[in-house]
């Protein structure tokens, strides 16, 4: 059966859709606001033990000996897991690129502060932590490798002796005649940038309960897994189990922003469970474990970025050199973040040629993980600063240089130099909207007045692309193969006309269960309360990936609408029999199966489902009594990457334009955000409230990136920001209230014309805030080129300006 997914809300079989595309209250919320949602740490199982993990205090050391005898003797301790168990029962961690990690417990050496070394299962977490203090590990410390430049030039100690190098990946991608473009340029603008590590920090850390089945040699894991099926495949590889002997059950999770699913913890808990003969073992990562050893650090980057320009401001070429410090292994998906920029390499601009000189190195820091945006935000930040510097050199307004280089609205679909195709967009409209909303000319006048008083006021104007609906092919260059990312949904109608939607992902915060209910209520013309959404585990659910890469809203919509279409066509056959009318004269519309042109001659969903349930004598021969359909959606038209990494990868290109007004305290270096305006275009908004929330949430994380958040390691590889007293999350005092305007250029390629809009402002805010800071201090002859623009850094720049 060919399934054609509607590209607009108007194509739904409903004359008056009430829910999709409108702001509705979320079905997830009543449980959340009453504290009734079952997060992993709420779960208790009979015989359950609690795991605590002893972690390395050294960045780089050889393990000489481990003595666990006193810990084993402590009352309440049931099992202690060491490298001996791990070498016996487990394989090294899976990695991208392949072959760059050790085991889930350090075996021969430790490579970062916080690396797991020994684990304990005890009757409760208190006793388990007591036991850790009784373990003696003798280390022979090694020189730490903490400088990515030294790691790259070969002068740092090597982490993996068998590799003989710390360079994990090194290649130059050239898309078009880049040298010629730079040679012919009227002007070349070049700058170097440093983006320090930061990361996701969801309010709920990662947690899991692993239970080994010693009879069948099988594993069940409950936990806050972002992508349960893929996580299960990885566990099979690491734990040496057949893939169908692993069952992952994703519990609702308290935020993710990339990386939820942890690394190592579920394997350690699984092996402890195996060692205890199959008792469930719970591991809840505490916040200090998360900060030092969790999936919470990303984007430790050194950029050199050059633009080739004509005298009129037209950008004719882009060159990006990135040295990416991935930390101690490639086990946590971090390398993918260096590949994803290919999906939107040249931003909103029609830059015909580009080069990407990419080096990824290993150092003695926590392995890098995914974080909201998955890599492009730092590149956008560097690109947008450079565009502003170019504008200043050319005497152009930031709005003018951007407008000159936008991909024109009539040029879509548009293939960028790095190979991806943007579906649609109107970048001028977004720019016009923020200029109007902010009264841009008045702001410039205000800036002039402030400057005359010696105050440092600046305006940041930035636009970015948010690639939506990720595809593996975008990551091919670093060794993650594949084209297409299936997402399935199963729709069931019961004999009372109630609808259940079964999916393969759990709550994470984005409100997708609500979107599912909106869609189904409008397709079947019922109330949202008639729809229930349930999560199935990795074995039972249809093929799925879940949230990630700004994909799930679009992918889930495709899966549900596909399943709805299959199911209603099947039910229509039954209706045709009941109505004693040929199939082609029947239709499903406005919630009933009816004779075309005779809407009063109809049967209901419940009639058909009831007929399947207990009326087999009325069923046509070719219809089985199953009022259920599954459809698995994947993005259409994706192509494998070519030898230069070019592919049709991310399906959608949402765009946003942000304008920020800041004031820098000329004496203290403190930055205050005084105004913030956003125009945002992500095509059809399935639930506008969800989109606004993601947009504003991205602003908050972007402000954190721009001003507050930074993991600091010293030269010995010690983490100096190991608590929330030093790793600073933005609060209501730092995050601005923003004025937002929604624009809509539907995608021609997606279900209902929606675009991915999950990562949102994280692409834009860091760049916008720092552009504003640089605008405020431009006349002083200094530039903020390091993230975050923390007060100590800004103050130092202001001192440089004075001297």
């Amino acid at each position, binding site marked *: 059966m060919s399934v054609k997914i509607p590209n607009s809300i108007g194509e739904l079989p409903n004359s008056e859709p009430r829910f999709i595309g409108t702001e509705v*209250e*979320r079905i*997830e*919320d*009543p*449980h*959340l*606001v*009453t*504290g*009734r*949602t079952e*997060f992993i*740490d*709420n779960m208790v199982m009979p015989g359950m033990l609690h795991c605590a993990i002893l972690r390395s205090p050294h960045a780089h050391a050889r393990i000489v000996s481990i003595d666990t005898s006193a810990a084993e003797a402590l009352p309440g301790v049931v099992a202690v897991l060491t490298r001996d168990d791990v070498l016996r029962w487990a394989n090294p961690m899976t990695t991208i690129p392949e072959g760059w990690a050790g085991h889930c417990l350090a075996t021969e050496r430790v490579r970062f502060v916080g690396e797991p070394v020994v684990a304990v299962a005890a009757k*409760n977490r*208190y006793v388990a932590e007591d036991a850790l203090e009784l373990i003696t590990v003798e280390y022979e410390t090694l020189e730490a490798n903490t400088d990515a430049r030294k790691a790259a030039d070969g002068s740092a100690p090597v982490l993996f002796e068998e590799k003989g190098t710390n360079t994990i990946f090194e290649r130059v991608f050239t898309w078009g005649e880049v040298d010629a473009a730079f040679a012919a340029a009227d002007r070349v603008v070049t700058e170097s940038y440093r983006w320090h590590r930061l990361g996701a*920090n*969801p*309010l*709920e*850390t990662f947690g899991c309960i692993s239970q080994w089945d010693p009879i069948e040699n099988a594993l069940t894991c409950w936990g806050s897994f972002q992508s349960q099926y893929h996580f299960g495949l990885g566990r099979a590889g690491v734990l040496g189990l057949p893939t169908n002997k692993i069952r992952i059950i994703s519990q609702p*999770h*308290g*935020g*993710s*922003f990339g990386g939820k699913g942890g690394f190592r913890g579920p394997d350690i808990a699984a092996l402890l469970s195996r060692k205890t003969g199959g008792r469930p073992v719970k591991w*809840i990562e*505490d*916040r200090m474990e998360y900060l030092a050893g969790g999936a919470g650090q990303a984007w430790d980057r050194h950029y050199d970025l050059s633009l080739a320009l004509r005298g009129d401001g037209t950008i004719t070429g882009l060159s990006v050199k990135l040295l990416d410090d991935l930390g101690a292994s490639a086990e946590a998906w971090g390398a993918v973040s260096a590949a994803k920029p290919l999906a939107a390499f040249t931003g909103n601009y029609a830059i015909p040629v580009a080069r990407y000189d990419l080096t990824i190195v290993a150092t003695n820091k926590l392995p890098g993980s995914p974080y909201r945006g998955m890599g492009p935000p730092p590149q956008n930040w560097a690109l947008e600063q450079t565009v502003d510097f170019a504008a200043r050199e050319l005497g152009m307004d930031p709005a003018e240089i951007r407008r000159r280089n936008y991909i024109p609205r009539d040029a879509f679909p548009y293939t960028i130099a790095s190979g991806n195709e943007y579906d649609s967009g109107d970048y001028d409209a977004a720019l016009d909207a923020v200029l109007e909303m902010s009264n841009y000319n008045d702001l410039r006048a205000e800036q002039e007045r402030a400057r005359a008083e010696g105050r440092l006021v600046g305006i940041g104007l930035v636009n970015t692309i948010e690639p939506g609906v990720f595809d593996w092919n975008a990551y091919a260059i670093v060794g993650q193969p594949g084209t297409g990312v299936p997402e399935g949904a199963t729709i069931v109608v019961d004999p009372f006309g109630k609808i259940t939607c079964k999916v393969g992902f759990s*709550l*994470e*915060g*984005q*409100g997708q269960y609500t979107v599912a209910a909106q869609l189904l209520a409008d397709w079947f013309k019922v109330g949202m309360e008639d729809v229930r959404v349930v999560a199935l585990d990795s074995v039972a659910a249809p093929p799925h990936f879940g949230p990630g890469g700004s994909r799930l809203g679009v992918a889930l919509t495709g899966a549900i609408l596909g399943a709805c279409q299959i199911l209603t066509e099947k039910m229509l056959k039954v209706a045709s029999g009941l109505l004693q009318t040929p199939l082609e004269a029947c239709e499903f519309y406005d919630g009933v199966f009816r004779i075309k042109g005779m809407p009063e001659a109809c049967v209901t969903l419940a009639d058909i489902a009831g007929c399947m349930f207990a009326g087999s004598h009325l069923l046509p021969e070719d219809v089985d009594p199953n009022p259920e359909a599954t459809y698995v959606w994947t993005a259409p038209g994706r192509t494998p990457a070519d030898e230069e990494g070019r592919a049709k990868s991310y399906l959608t290109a949402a765009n946003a334009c942000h304008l920020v007004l800041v004031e820098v305290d000329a004496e203290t270096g403190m930055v205050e955000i005084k105004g913030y305006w956003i125009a945002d275009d992500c095509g059809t908004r399935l639930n506008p*409230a*969800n989109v*606004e*929330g*993601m947009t*504003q*949430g*991205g*602003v*908050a*994380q972007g402000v954190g990136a721009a001003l507050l958040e930074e993991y600091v390691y010293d030269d010995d590889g010690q983490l100096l920001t190991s*608590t*929330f*007293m030093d790793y600073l*999350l933005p*609060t*209501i*005092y730092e*995050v601005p*209230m*923003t004025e937002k305007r929604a624009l809509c250029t539907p995608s021609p390629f997606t279900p209902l014309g929606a675009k991915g809009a999950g990562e949102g402002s994280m692409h834009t805010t860091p760049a916008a805030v720092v552009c504003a800071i640089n605008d405020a201090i431009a006349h002083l002859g200094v530039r903020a080129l390091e993230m975050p623009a923390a007060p100590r850094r800004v103050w130092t720049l202001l001192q440089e300006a004075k001297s």
Partner: protein
Amino acid sequence: MADLRKIRVTVNGEEHEAEIEPRLTLVDFLRGELGLTGTHVGCEHGVCGACTILWNGRSVRSCIMLAVQADGSELKTIEGVSSDGSLHPIQKAFIEEHGLQCGFCTPGFVMSVSELLEHSPDPSDDEIKDYLGGQICRCTGYQTIFGAVKSAARKVREAGESGAAGEGTD
């Protein structure tokens, strides 16, 4: 192991007696011993506010309080804010104004806001910020939460004026 100590606390109007280790934190007592898992643990060092509860009517971090310190106290957790499936006006406001996404921090926010509105039924913007400044939300960016508090204050005031404050407000 230290000697166990007997404590008696009233939680959400119900009296509990327990023998516990002195080192047991209050949040672990509420979650582990009483099964009141609506109070969440986010940082265990008093910064994020996910574990906020009311202690004798005042909002506190239950992760940096020992259960023994609460002996003889009256505690209120998110489970005590509404009952019978009905929602407190604060909870309704959070839903209507989309003041949550993942919802993990929300119980802590609700508890802080309930103290705020008790103490200041028509809070100024500064007062709202003061009360929320120590509650971290990683999802929403606070704008909708701020709106939810404004709306909740209106709802609570209106309920008070119409004499219908009893609805779910304990």
